[in-house]
């Protein structure tokens, strides 16, 4: 294997090995991408390289919601059409992308950057819970929607946030959990089925 890699130049094999570390990219795809870039114009390859280094040097976390931002505030927080009194709490910045893609939520977000995982030693001080509480104390918040993942860690986080926020007199809701679109009932697990029944709605 090493012998084979030696037949291509060190710089190409370095690119292949870096690309294959990316999620969803196996060694074959990495090779294809590397040879594509080798043939691409200097400008095209340069743009890609520049875009990659820019996400590390130019981005930071939004000072309000801890989403990824280019400036002090992320696009959502700096928008004038969003309702700042409704906060949707998510685990990761990419969850915002998914929700924004749907395009029906008009409030703002708060990114925790993780979920409580006791046996991994991830507790309240390792994710951005304090920041959320401060935000609620200092602003006119009417509703907090908890949109953590429907996993044991996500649920633990949701239950803890509910315990913390609800005594502050704020309406706390949880994203409805039901059957995923395109799946079959017989394969659903008990927790999902139970929640889907509890959260049933009129037509």
């Amino acid at each position, binding site marked *: 294997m090493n012998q084979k890699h030696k037949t291509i130049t060190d710089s190409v094999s370095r690119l292949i090995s870096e690309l294959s570390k990316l999620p*969803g990219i196996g060694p074959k795809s990495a090779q294809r991408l590397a040879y594509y870039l080798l043939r691409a114009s200097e400008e095209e390859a340069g743009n890609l390289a520049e875009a990659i280094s820019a996400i590390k040097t130019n981005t930071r976390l939004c000072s309000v919601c801890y989403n990824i931002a280019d400036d002090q505030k992320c696009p959502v927080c700096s928008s004038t059409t969003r309702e700042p009194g409704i906060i949707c709490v998510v685990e990761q910045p990419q969850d915002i992308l998914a929700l924004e893609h749907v395009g029906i939520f008009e409030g703002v977000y708060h990114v925790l950057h993780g979920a409580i995982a*006791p046996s991994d030693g991830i507790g309240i001080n390792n994710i951005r819970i304090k920041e959320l509480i401060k935000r609620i104390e200092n602003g006119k918040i009417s509703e907090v929607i908890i949109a953590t993942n429907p996993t*044991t860690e996500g*649920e*633990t986080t949701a239950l803890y946030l509910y315990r913390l926020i609800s005594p502050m007199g704020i309406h706390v809701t949880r994203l409805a959990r039901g059957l995923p679109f395109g799946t079959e009932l017989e394969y659903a697990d*008990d927790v999902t089925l139970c929640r889907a029944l509890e959260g049933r709605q009129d037509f």
Partner: protein
Amino acid sequence: MSCPREYQTEAVIIRKMRLGEADRIITLYTPFYGKLQAVAKAVCKPKSKLSGHLELLAYSQVTLARGKKLDTIIGSQTINSFLPLRKDLNITSCGLYLAELVNLFTAEADNIDNHHLFYLLVNTLERLSQGANSHSCLRYFEIQLLEQAGYRPQLKVCSSCHTPLKPVINTFCPATGGIICPRCSFKETVSYSISVNGLKVFRLFQDCDMSTALRLKLTGELNTELEGLIRNYCYYILEREIKSCVWLDNLK
């Protein structure tokens, strides 16, 4: 290539770790294979038929295919997901603590028939989700786990001079794995005092069944005493902290 050999087992999911984007390495505790690690492919995709059946603390029937390094989970069906447990922060947290304890006290791929420990875990989760006194559940589980793992403390005679213990304040000493009498206690540097009632409950929980143990509603000082003793003993055995303890303390 020959067909992979498949096998089925009951299991409780005690740990989940990321493997790339959507795959997970799942740690299963099983009655007859002991602790197993297996890969679950694409479990976090919404259409995965496995996902909910492989959530932490789920008690499921799992089908695995043998692999070169790790086996792969190819099917799973929930036996009990302990529904009430999932709606209560304290009980979920207790459950996660039990799972971590089992993970820390067992070795991987030991292929050990340890159905006693397996059903202890399942029954404790069940009783917790039925609303049993969580202190009694946890202390009984810990004491029985120590028993199963081969760390049963000596509670009848002084583990230094071997004379029967008197109903006075004695000392629990992790290094000797038992109680030492007041006359011998000066010899040990790391030790913790244990009250007469503390010792009584400890002895009872070593030898009684779960229903008997849960009839005793452990509260207040007595629970705090036993919790502290057992935690120190576990720390001595494992030589590391039990991470979920921090979280349990947080919720108090």
